[in-house]
């Protein structure tokens, strides 16, 4: 009852502050540009920032996230005013820009805003105290209720849930964007995103490009947060650690993602950008201001990913339970390590490439400007050196979830454990050598394309090992199909379709036809849904009882699965078909002469069914917090350590440490155990 009131108060304040912010923005815009622009960016920017902040204020009061957002707004405005002032003093002719402040002012302001957020939310408090010579306790007590999720907590389980819920929010936003532009594509000709349409200073086609680009990047950030969510929640628990190796760094990595998300939404409002998430120059060096917000947002989120993966590696290397040797690690940990190695070492390249374009715009540096001796193709090399391995960052944890859950529901050991573990590492390493397969038509050296075809096809080998081993695990098992297992099976089939449609793109000659078409769009949606979305849902259904002590509704879980899976197959197979027939990527409209109208209509319906199924998931997720069937025991009958203790998990995990005494997945071996908990008298001698 109490909670509903808070949410209601938050929503009320959201509306009031939104309207007030719009009015303030309209006024400021009128003062400076002398026109009353109702579809302009400035009123909407004020409305968005104030509304979101007011919502959290109503929900939660002036602390934690509310304080962070307030500081971010103030920091942004102060930073922008500072640059504006400097420009005025220097006698610059352009003090203000099309979006109130000039571009350099916005960029500097946004950077100050991000840093201010981190100070405001309090995630650097302890470090600041240490710098001043003040000691802080090792752990901080969290509030018992839901409030702890809205301020800085050092508990890996709280942070894991913060990550997961933020990822779900972003999935909803990115999915909504997709539904908007999918509706535009339901028929040829422009439907509602027409050239006379105006929103946020953008015409229909421009807004289409912005939404399409933001759908890509918001989903990517959502995936990065989603995998961090699962890894944060699960990894310390299944290796027997009390927490992550660096709890403050862990919190810092999470809280970076919040201002990054705000920047992404700001990019939509501040003119948008029309480059796709790839941001290729020269297009990105001449795109509207939104481009810079996008660059900064990715930059910030990239830091989150780098620091988070560092923490995962340190935790697994240093904090495993006694007896947990490499070949007795839970398989999900192998996947997490592989993914973290990539994220730790490759993310810098996307940050660097975006930073170079930022500087090109701000300071006129000619890195990718042919007129100044730069090379646009160089950007693509830098960009894909991260952005291809990033795909494996997205899917490896998901494939780990598949391998982790299969034995539980098949009641049989994971077939070829060592091979599956090594295949994750192999995919991660080979993944570093394939980036130029995104560039077969780019004008890169023609002969260099051939070695990249070889390396790309090589990825099929370790991926194949996983598929064969999964099928062998299912073979002669005793298979049960509760909701998590349904999503695991869906993941295998969808990822198989993604995997099988990969080699055609690797064959250079055939890729000359497929590149930049909807075939690619269908292909990568299959890999990402099979490698991340399905396993992510499986993981949520599976570990939800561990986090809450209740389980999500089986009935609605199955409705979710059976509505989403067929719709998704229709959508992506349809995408591939229209792509082969001539449908290019990233277009607001297509030639009616191609005869693809009916296919697009069917795909649009399928997309809405997916949206509906995810909505059902959301309702199930939040409803089950209170009304779910209580589930405090080992409901999946798993051997894994976290299920040997009651749910929900206590704050510092295990009250007594465990020791690994057997193989993790020896289902069907009588009398065998994976872990053994120390008896009470031994506790005092164990590590702590």
């Amino acid at each position, binding site marked *: 009852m109490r909670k509903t009131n808070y949410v209601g108060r938050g929503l009320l304040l959201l509306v009031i502050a939104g309207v007030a912010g719009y009015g303030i923005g309209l006024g400021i815009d009128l003062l400076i540009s002398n*026109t009353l622009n109702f579809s302009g960016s400035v009123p909407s920017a004020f409305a968005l920032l104030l509304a979101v902040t007011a919502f959290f204020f109503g929900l939660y009061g002036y602390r934690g996230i509310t304080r962070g957002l307030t500081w971010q707004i103030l920091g942004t405005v102060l930073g922008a005013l500072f640059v504006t002032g400097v420009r005025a003093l220097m006698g610059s002719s352009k003090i203000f820009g*099309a979006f109130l402040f000039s571009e350099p002012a916005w960029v500097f302001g946004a950077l100050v805003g991000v840093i201010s957020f981190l100070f405001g939310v309090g995630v650097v408090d302890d470090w600041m105290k240490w710098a001043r010579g003040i000691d802080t306790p090792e752990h901080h007590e969290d509030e018992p209720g839901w409030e702890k999720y809205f301020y800085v907590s050092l508990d890996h389980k709280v942070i894991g849930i913060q990550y997961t819920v933020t990822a779900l929010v972003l999935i909803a936003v990115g999915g909504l964007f997709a539904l908007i532009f999918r509706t535009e594509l339901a028929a040829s000709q422009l439907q509602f995103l027409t*050239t006379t349409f105006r929103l946020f*200073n*953008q*015409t229909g*086609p*421009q807004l289409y*490009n912005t939404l399409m680009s933001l759908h890509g990047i918001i989903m990517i950030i959502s995936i990065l947060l989603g995998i961090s969510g699962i890894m944060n929640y699960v990894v310390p628990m299944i290796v027997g650690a009390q927490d992550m190796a660096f709890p403050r760094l862990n919190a810092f990595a999470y809280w970076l993602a919040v201002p990054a998300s705000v920047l992404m939404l700001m990019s939509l409002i501040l*003119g948008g950008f*029309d*480059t*796709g998430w790839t941001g*290729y120059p*020269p*297009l990105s060096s001449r795109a509207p201001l939104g481009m810079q917000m996008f660059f900064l947002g990715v930059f910030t989120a990239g830091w989150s990913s780098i620091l988070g993966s560092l923490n995962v590696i340190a935790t697994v290397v240093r904090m495993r339970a006694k007896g947990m040797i490499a070949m007795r690690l839970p398989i999900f940990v192998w996947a997490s390590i592989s993914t973290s190695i990539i994220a730790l070492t490759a993310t810098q390249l996307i940050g660097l490439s975006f930073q170079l374009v930022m500087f090109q715009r701000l300071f006129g540096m000619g890195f990718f400007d042919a*007129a100044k001796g730069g090379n*646009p193709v160089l950007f693509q090399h830098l960009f894909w050196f991260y952005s291809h391995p990033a795909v494996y960052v997205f899917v490896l944890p998901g494939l780990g979830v598949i391998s982790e859950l299969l034995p539980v529901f098949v*009641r*049989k*050991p994971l*077939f*070829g454990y060592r091979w599956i573990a090594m295949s994750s590492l192999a995919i991660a390493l080979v993944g570093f050598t394939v980036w130029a397969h995104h560039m077969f*038509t780019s*004008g890169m050296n023609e002969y260099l*394309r*051939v070695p990249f*075809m070889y390396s790309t*096809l090589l990825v*099929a080998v370790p991926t*194949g*090992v996983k598929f*064969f081993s999964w099928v*062998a695990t*299912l*073979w*002669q*098992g*005793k*298979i049960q*199909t509760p909701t998590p297992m349904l999503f695991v*099976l869906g993941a*295998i089939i969808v990822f198989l*379709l993604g995997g099988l449609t990969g*080699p055609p793109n690797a*064959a*250079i*000659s*055939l890729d*000359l036809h497929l590149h*930049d078409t909807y075939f690619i769009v269908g292909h990568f949606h299959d890999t990402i849904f099979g490698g991340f979305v399905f396993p992510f849902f499986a993981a949520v259904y599976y570990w939800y009882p561990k986090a809450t002590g209740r389980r999500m509704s089986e009935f609605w879980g199955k409705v979710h699965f059976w509505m989403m899976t067929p719709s998704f197959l229709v959508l992506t197979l349809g995408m591939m078909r229209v792509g082969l*027939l*001539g449908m290019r990527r*990233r*277009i607001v*409209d297509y030639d009616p*002469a191609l005869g693809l109208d009916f296919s697009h209509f069917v795909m649009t319906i399928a997309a809405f069914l997916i949206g509906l199924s995810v909505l059902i998931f959301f309702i199930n997720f939040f409803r089950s917090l209170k009304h779910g069937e209580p589930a405090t025991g080992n409901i999946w009958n798993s051997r894994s350590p976290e299920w040997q203790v009651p749910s929900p998990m206590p704050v510092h995990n295990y009250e007594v440490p465990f020791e690994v005494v057997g193989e993790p997945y*020896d289902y*069907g*071996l009588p009398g065998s155990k994976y872990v053994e908990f120390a008896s009470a008298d031994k506790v005092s001698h164990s590590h702590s």
Partner: protein
Amino acid sequence: MRHFLIVGILVVVAAILTYVGLDSANLMPVAASAQAVPIDEMWNLELIFMSFFFALIVVPLAYSLIAFRRKKGDTSDAEHMEGNTKLEIAWTVLPLFIVIAFAYVGAVNLAETRRVDPDAIIVKVTGIQWSWKFEYPPYGVVSDELHLPVDKQVLLQMTSTDVIHSFWVPEFRVKQDLVPGRITELRITPTLEGDYKVRCAELCGTSHAFMEKPVVISSQGDFDEWMAEQVKLAEQAAATPGGRGQALVAANGCAACHSINGAQGIGPTWSGLFGHEVLLTDGTPVSADEAYIAESIKAPQAKIVAGFEGQLMPSYGFTDEQIADVVAYIKTLR
């Protein structure tokens, strides 16, 4: 053993059915170039492998779900089976050979699409936001349509004046990006007469979707006829300022944003523009005379018409004479 036999048979059946289904689904547009032939062969080879591996995974998976489903009330575990090293080695090494062979076939296939004819016709292609410009050097003709004779290789020498574009005619299969500051090449041998469209495949901004122009493949005779007409038209046009202006407008793709019939576009229409008053973003009215139009071509951001805020028109680097020609042409659009 019985299980293996059933699954083995089902895999073969499913693989064949999948292949036949995919093969008869007409997934590719008509093949209209010599380069399309090896590419379609490669696609067919991929289809065979896709069908086989799809069946190889999905059939045992589906079979297991039916045959090895846990019986009601059974709470025991399955038989303990940890793995089989020989099997793992087999399904690592065998695919390894397959992919290496595949990459070799792919390289040979690529070489076939790149076969060079020393007598190829050369056409210079320029990508412009958001139009195409085709120059035929021996004839001195510039057009926004690509006309080619059938069965003769053409070498497209391509570049871009602004951002990256990509030349793609789906019926020809091959695709190549146009990169500012350098020349990229693409060889195509059209083999089927007909009307096609070149479609920009690399996202290039607001009107990317509409960056399409006709590609006409005709017999050598028809091509020569078209070319002779173009040469004649170009000579006629060159005689008057308006005609030269019209040619410049066509070649630079101005119509991608500015309509000449009053239709709404990315930029203001030119129909009935000259001599009339337009309203700028700050509310001041301006008479669209020669000086105003010339300024708007030279420095597009200097004065922006209300309703077209945020539309970034590039400056095309025209000479003063060329601008005078374009203005003369716009004058004719009453």
